[in-house]
């Protein structure tokens, strides 16, 4: 959601920039200079000044098309505009100052608005102030400046300072609104994403919880209510089995290369805490069994491990589409209820001294 809003904000700003450039272009292209070439003596500095301002405007058009900013060229360009403004103002015959022949007085300020688009408002105010001072300085320095001329200067200043300032102010307000809107929409999108992730995680957790059977609850309830005695070896084995199942359950969402071996190692860790030495013997090849198959496929090995006294060996062997997970443990007489799955077959062989449990999954291939 945040991407289209961001581009809308960028579009708004880019439109604003084109509008400012259009105003500056209109002002410059309708300036009086071409119409009053005969009034200027000398003419060359005026043409040069006009050319410089026109060049800045053309550069802005190119930058707009290329979607680029002035960046490091901004300050030299500003100095160029001020130079052009000074050149035009100070080479103008004194009688034409502040008249319609004084073309640069009303137009050079707009180039400042173009160049300082997107910059802090005080920078524009400073530029316009300096630019105004160029004309004001020339007026004040003239011998015999009368009050009419000063009034003209003030009246003209309203247009040359006020309009560009107002335009700059409006553009900076619009920019602030665009940025704020963008931030608000980004925050809203972030909240929506967080919410979606939370819902997704909760769904995944519920789906996984559905695969965890009621064994733990039954065991804990029995212990809490006193039906089951923790001193009973059978209860201790059942507890170890549920602990191993829980460990496998917690490990089954880890992103690992071989989830089957990863879950078996987690289950083996529970046995190793009882100081049972667990050896692994994986051979052959296999595809990772689906999420709903693994709990049943691993369950025989987890159950067999809880029978072990000192030593157990877990074998995983994949042959021609049949994957077999089994455990041999040096403890016997243990045949717990194992998790079932239609495609998983358990074989339990237990004697006094030894337990072997094999769980086979035939995968997508026919049973062998």
């Amino acid at each position: 959601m945040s991407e289209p809003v961001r581009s809308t904000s960028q579009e708004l700003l880019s439109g604003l920039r084109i509008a400012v450039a259009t105003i500056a272009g209109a002002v410059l292209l309708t300036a009086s200079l071409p119409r009053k070439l005969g009034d200027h003596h000398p003419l060359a500095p005026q043409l040069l000044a006009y050319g410089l301002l026109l060049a800045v405007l053309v550069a802005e058009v190119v930058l707009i098309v290329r979607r680029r900013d002035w960046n490091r060229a901004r300050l030299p360009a500003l100095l160029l505009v001020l130079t052009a403004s000074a050149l035009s103002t100070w080479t103008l015959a004194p009688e034409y100052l502040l008249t319609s022949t004084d073309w640069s007085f009303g137009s050079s300020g707009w180039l400042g608005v173009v160049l300082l688009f997107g910059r802090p408002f005080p920078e524009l105010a400073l530029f316009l102030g300096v630019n105004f001072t160029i004309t004001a300085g020339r007026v004040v320095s003239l011998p015999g400046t009368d009050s009419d001329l000063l009034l003209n200067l003030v009246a003209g200043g309203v247009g040359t300072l006020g309009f560009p300032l107002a335009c700059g102010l409006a553009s900076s307000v619009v920019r602030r609104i665009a940025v704020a809107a963008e931030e608000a929409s980004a925050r809203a999108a972030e909240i929506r994403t967080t919410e979606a992730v939370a819902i997704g995680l909760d769904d995944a957790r519920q789906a996984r919880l559905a695969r965890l059977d009621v064994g733990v609850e039954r065991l804990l309830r029995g212990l809490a209510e006193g039906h089951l005695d923790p001193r009973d070896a059978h209860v201790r084995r059942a507890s170890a089995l549920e602990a191993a199942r829980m460990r496998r359950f917690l490990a089954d969402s880890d992103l690992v290369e071989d989830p089957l071996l990863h879950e078996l190692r987690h289950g083996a860790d529970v046995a190793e805490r009882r100081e049972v030495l667990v050896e692994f013997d994986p051979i052959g090849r296999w595809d990772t069994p689906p999420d709903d198959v693994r709990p049943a496929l691993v369950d025989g090995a987890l159950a067999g491990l809880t029978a072990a006294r000192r030593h157990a060996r877990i074998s995983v062997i994949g042959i021609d589409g049949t994957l077999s997970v089994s455990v041999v443990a040096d403890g016997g007489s243990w045949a717990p209820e194992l998790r079932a799955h239609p495609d998983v077959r358990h074989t339990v062989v237990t004697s006094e001294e030894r337990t072997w449990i094999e769980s086979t999954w035939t995968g997508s291939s026919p049973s062998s």
Partner: protein
Amino acid sequence: MDRVDLDRQLTVVVIDDHRVARRGLASWFGETTPPIAVLADGETVDVALYPGPGADADVVVLDLQLAPGRPNLDGLQRLVDAGRKVVVYTQFTENSIAVRCIDVGALAYVTKAEAEDHLIDAVRAAAAGQPYTPPTLGGAIASDTDPRRPVLSIQEITALRVWFTSRSKGMAAEAMGVAPSTIHTYIDRARAKYAAQGRPASSKSEMVRRALEDGLIELSDLEGGG
């Protein structure tokens, strides 16, 4: 040479690059009943090939290493080519190495982890010119994916698999619902098919001849196995 005289003491030559290991094996063989005599031991296969006590031993127990200058597959090849009955005894558990060793002509492949339960039996079987298949080798044969491997039946593969995983022929037999002797037959038949496969070696020809005599394999297995 085919059948050993049961009244005569069995003899072996031990090849291992660790002196302590050679001593340990010698003491182990001496303590078994009936005892097995270590006629000679050394770091290289030469001790079993050149004239001397080692050349007369019934069985060569070879600690397979894969480092240059150590007893390796070339050494195993030389021993087999010289007509020696070799039991490979190694720390390597990779299937490909196990299958390669029996392809070269070793009579048994025993990993160090299963030596306690199987090495003596493997040596006794080898002395009689018979193959012996400990669980690791059984698993390696069952899961061999080499396209040139002989065609094994489902029962043979299952027997090898349950032997590998249960490490008990009794439990494997119970799981398959057959007698332990039947598990033996399945495993021996699979092993004989492997012996009939690949390059000729005197110990392998002997195995194949026995397997044919005992009805474990038929001539069609030999044709199918190449």
